[in-house]
């Protein structure tokens, strides 16, 4: 309690002193104020149900060949944004038989290739084809910050080794698609 009283007294004395100096104006500043906004990207949220493209039965059971009418609904990434110029990159791995991993016999294959596409972010869609020797369109640059939706789809299915090959039976074929938003340097 005694300590509190001493502090109050000191403030009052200082106040008196300041008024006495008011006639000769003094200024401090300007005081610089700075901040920064880091370059951020988020990929949004999948608003299209599960995170899987489920293709169901891959073959025509009458011939054993890959179906030519395979289709899966696209996935929508809602609310994706980058606060700086950015690259969108698509990569994918082919569908491979999960259980039957033995090297397939003559006339058979255990691989289904496809093309993954991401649209909505850049004028030219980012595409990646599994099994292709190169994928020059896999990364696309957006020169401005952006907020929007990205549509991810798969199509262009083909049998690894050629469409004349039959697919070995397996209750599970599994592949993947990865979409990456990254701040461009």
């Amino acid at each position, binding site marked *: 309690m005694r300590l509190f009283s001493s502090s109050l007294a000191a403030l009052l004395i200082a106040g008196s002193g300041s008024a006495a100096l008011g006639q000769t104006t003094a200024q401090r500043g300007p005081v610089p104020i700075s901040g920064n906004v880091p370059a951020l990207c988020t990929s949004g949220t*999948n608003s299209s149900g599960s995170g899987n493209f489920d293709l169901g039965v891959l073959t025509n059971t009458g011939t054993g060949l890959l179906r030519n009418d395979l289709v899966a609904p696209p*996935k929508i990434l809602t609310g994706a944004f980058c606060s700086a110029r950015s690259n969108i990159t698509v990569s994918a791995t082919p569908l491979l038989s999960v259980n039957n991993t033995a090297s397939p*016999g003559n*006339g058979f294959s255990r691989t289904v290739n496809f093309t993954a596409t991401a649209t909505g972010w850049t004028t030219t869609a980012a595409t990646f084809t599994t099994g292709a020797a190169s994928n020059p369109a896999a990364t696309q640059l957006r020169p401005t910050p952006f907020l929007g939706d990205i549509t991810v789809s798969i199509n262009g299915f083909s049998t690894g080794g050629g469409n004349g090959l039959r697919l070995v*039976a397996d209750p*599970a*074929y599994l592949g*993947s698609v990865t979409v990456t938003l*990254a701040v461009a340097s």
Partner: protein
Amino acid sequence: MRARLLLILAGLALPAAAYGQSNSAVSNFGVTGNVPGSCAVGAPQLAAGRQNNFLGLNGTTLQIDQLVNPATLSTNAASVEVRFEAVCTFPHRLKVETQNNGLWSTSERTGPAPEGFGNAIPYRADVTWDDTNLRLNADAGVRRIANNSVLVDGAGLGDLLLRLEIDAGATNERANAPLLAGTYGDTLRITLEPQ
């Protein structure tokens, strides 16, 4: 000095970690499907040059040209080879089944044949499929369903070959016994069944 060096390293690492978390974002999707075990057998086709005393193939019916040798009134030799395009995407069972266990008279007449006459003709069916051979002896001993099968441990693709052979003079009575007049027939089923 060593302590100071450690502090400097830590100071550099922290901003880098914070930066790495914020400047890229990744979304992963799975792609799934399945391939059920299935087998398919195409339409039969005559194998060229492997046909003796057969008229040919009409749809799925094989017609024997001269079933009886007019000199002996017993069975003429006949053979034919039929090819089926086939595929199985799974380990499977190859099965051959005869409806009558031989070529039997298709007339309505029942009962045993008169003494010394034959009323059925034995034959052999040989199937070759994906390095597997299977024989069914339809011996015409008793009119019944008969079959033989083999497990094929793997997927298969290619031609399934069926060879039918009827020996000269073969009957269910004795060799070279005369055959009762009539129409003779049998139904053969070839099955590829996923296991």
